[in-house]
């Protein structure tokens, strides 16, 4: 063995080293971590799943869900197939942040709510700070949310709409919205479900997480747990939706 040239010996050592480290850090390490995680923190390790009465998983509390119905004209498009996801929001649910995706037929970005919260394709629109297409969609989304969140008794103007309600999250699977955004949607929820604003606000409060240890991160309202709580406490058969401008025709 020692008669071999140094270069050959070195590469043999490198091959053996890679195999050794593959076994240690690539096989043993993740398996040990999985064992520890499953034993000590089962719920977190499994993805913070929320189950219903029959033990069926209905959500991960860390991921958002879409609460939309495709509008009749665009029903065929709403397949979450990664092509287009035009849809209108359901009135009785708190909406998480919007999704701006490309429409290959148009060659530009449009508002495609049904594409949101797709667990197998995460990421944002990556449109730049001076992008005209983005400006157009944000403007449309402001008008959409103002009409959506205004009720018989309250009016939300386009200028008042919370900023996180017109911008896409970085992951597009974030369940959190700002408390301002939740408060703005509260009147619509109360009216649709036929409950009082106070009842809605109490649930918002219960599903709001503050900053960790008071300083880390920002407060957020978890739309996933909030909507589950709403359906549980104040079930509603209302299935009304509101038509949203998508930017596809303008």
């Amino acid at each position, binding site marked *: 063995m020692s008669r071999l040239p140094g270069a050959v010996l070195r*590469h043999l*050592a490198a091959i*053996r*080293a*890679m195999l050794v480290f*593959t076994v240690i*850090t*690539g096989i043993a*390490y*993740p398996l*040990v*971590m*999985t064992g*520890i*995680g499953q034993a*000590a*923190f089962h719920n*977190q*390790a499994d*993805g*913070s*799943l929320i189950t219903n009465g029959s033990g069926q*998983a*209905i959500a*991960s509390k*860390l991921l958002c*869900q*879409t*609460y*939309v119905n495709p509008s009749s004209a665009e029903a065929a498009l709403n397949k979450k197939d990664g092509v287009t996801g035009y849809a209108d929001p*359901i009135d009785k649910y708190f909406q998480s942040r919007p999704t701006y995706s490309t429409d290959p037929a148009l060659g530009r970005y449009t508002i495609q709510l049904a594409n949101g919260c*797709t*667990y197998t*394709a*995460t*990421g*944002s*629109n*990556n449109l*730049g*700070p*001076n992008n*005209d297409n983005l*400006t157009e969609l944000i403007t449309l989304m402001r008008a959409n949310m103002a009409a959506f969140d205004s009720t018989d008794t309250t009016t939300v103007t386009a200028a008042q709409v919370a*900023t*996180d309600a*017109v*911008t896409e*999250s*970085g*992951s597009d699977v974030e*369940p959190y919205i*700002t408390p301002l955004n939740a408060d703005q949607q509260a009147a619509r929820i109360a009216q649709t479900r036929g409950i009082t604003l106070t009842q809605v606000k109490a649930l918002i409060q219960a599903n709001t*997480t503050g*900053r*960790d240890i008071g*300083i880390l*991160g*920002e407060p*957020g309202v978890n739309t996933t747990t909030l909507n589950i709580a709403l359906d549980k406490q104040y079930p509603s058969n209302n299935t009304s939706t509101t038509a949203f401008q998508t930017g596809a025709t303008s």
Partner: protein
Amino acid sequence: MSVAAAGWLQAGLLVFALAVTYRPLGDYMAHILSSARHWRVEKGLYRLMGVDADADQTWPVYIRSVLAISVVGVLLLYAILRLQDHLMLSLGMPAMQANLAYNTASSFVTNTNWQNYAGESALGYTAQFAGLAVQNFVSAAVGIAVVATLIRGFTRTQTDRVGNFWVDLTRLIVRLMLPFSIVFGIVLIAAGIPQELASHLATVHTLTGGSGPLYTGATASQEVIKELGTNGGGIFNANSAHPFENPNGFTNWLEIYLLLCIGFSLPRTFGKMVGSHRQGYVIAGVMGVIWAGSAATMTWMEERHWGSALAVAGSSMNGKEVRFGIPGSALFATSTTLTSTGAVDSMHDSYSALGGGTAIFDMMLGEIAPGGTGSGLYGMLILAIVTVFIAGLMVGRTPEYLGKKIRPAEMKYAALYILATPSVALIFSGIAMASTSARNSMNNSGPHGFSEVLYAFTSMANNNGSAFAGLNGNTDFWNTTGGIAMTLGRFLPMVFVLALAGSLARQRHTPASVGTLKTHTPLFAGLLTGVVFIVVGLTYFPALALGPLAEGLK
């Protein structure tokens, strides 16, 4: 509490935590790199590898060992990615196509972790664990091993030996990376990051009657080494913006700490090994000032949200997560681009022009504040040598640093180091802009489109790995040129560092005289900071002017 106050306290707590661990972590790494005793388990590993743990290597042998394990690493990872469909636990994912597998293998071996694929729809467990995670450990340890040789170049005299690569590598993985990953990985699981194998595709039945698969993955074990080893390759396409990789404000803060802690503690290791803690404080101080300046600048830019689309939105929250907000996002962005991490908790492409420009500038600094594991410190020490040289020119004396003369040979290696990465970044950016097919990958047009290209090659040449992610990198052009850029950007500088280490180690010790520039003073820290900005400014200003500056000052 106001957003600003919480943001300041969050950053303050980070600085405090880094300051507290500076000494113990730095001393521990110095111990790892200089102890004469092998652990029993390490002796067993050396036997398995077939290496002589007590043989000191010359610099050419050391760098060839680095290159050997890197070549083997690329080939092994390429094979795993190409053969994924035949491996167990692959979740039915298909084999990766050839040019993408080449790009990914180069990316993870070079500690870059640029990703032209989306993890949740491309890779199963075997490729993530046995392929990518292994390189997360190895490439991080390689960086520290290389800076160890440079430090030994200063401490050793009249020898051609700079250390034993196999010993450095093994100890850094066994004594540092692995135990830290286990401890902090458990913390991350407790804080909400998934870690499971069995129900990886639990079906979720939503309130609106839909159902869909939930890909959770064994995320925590990857997440911790992704940050600790300044790697940055996410399990998910959304990286640390994904709630499974980064569920809350606490994990966001901890991930920032993890990606900074080794880089900021290595100056202590350096100070301890060269026998003067003040030398370490100077380096750490310069790193800290640049980091703080960048964090403040980026946070300010994002809070101000200049830009026509951002003005309509009323904030720069497009591409950012509510649970982190502006302060948590900007702090992460500045830390990830000043190290070679490249993990992102928000989409840099959608940052304001000058906020995103700050991220590009951070990488252009060479990722030295505090930089990637090991690579940050050797980059900073090279700049310290340049600083000593410039100061020596001013007073007309042969420059010295830590008792070693900076002669023409040393300066040549330092100059080559300084030139290598920018050459790769700028030449490839130029080629891309000249190619129609490469430009077609842009997601935005105008100066911002150029910024996407400049960001990409700056990131790859500096082994960062973050992106203006609108750029579609999964094309023949980007996969191929990217792989080449990452390889050159990683190993060219390493060769020059090793050559420099060898050259320094051969010298005898030169006692300090009255004319020697003191390198443990605030004056030197100021000089070094100035040199950092002048060198980088002169190199990159024209390119910056065409991209982020053109967009931001419009």
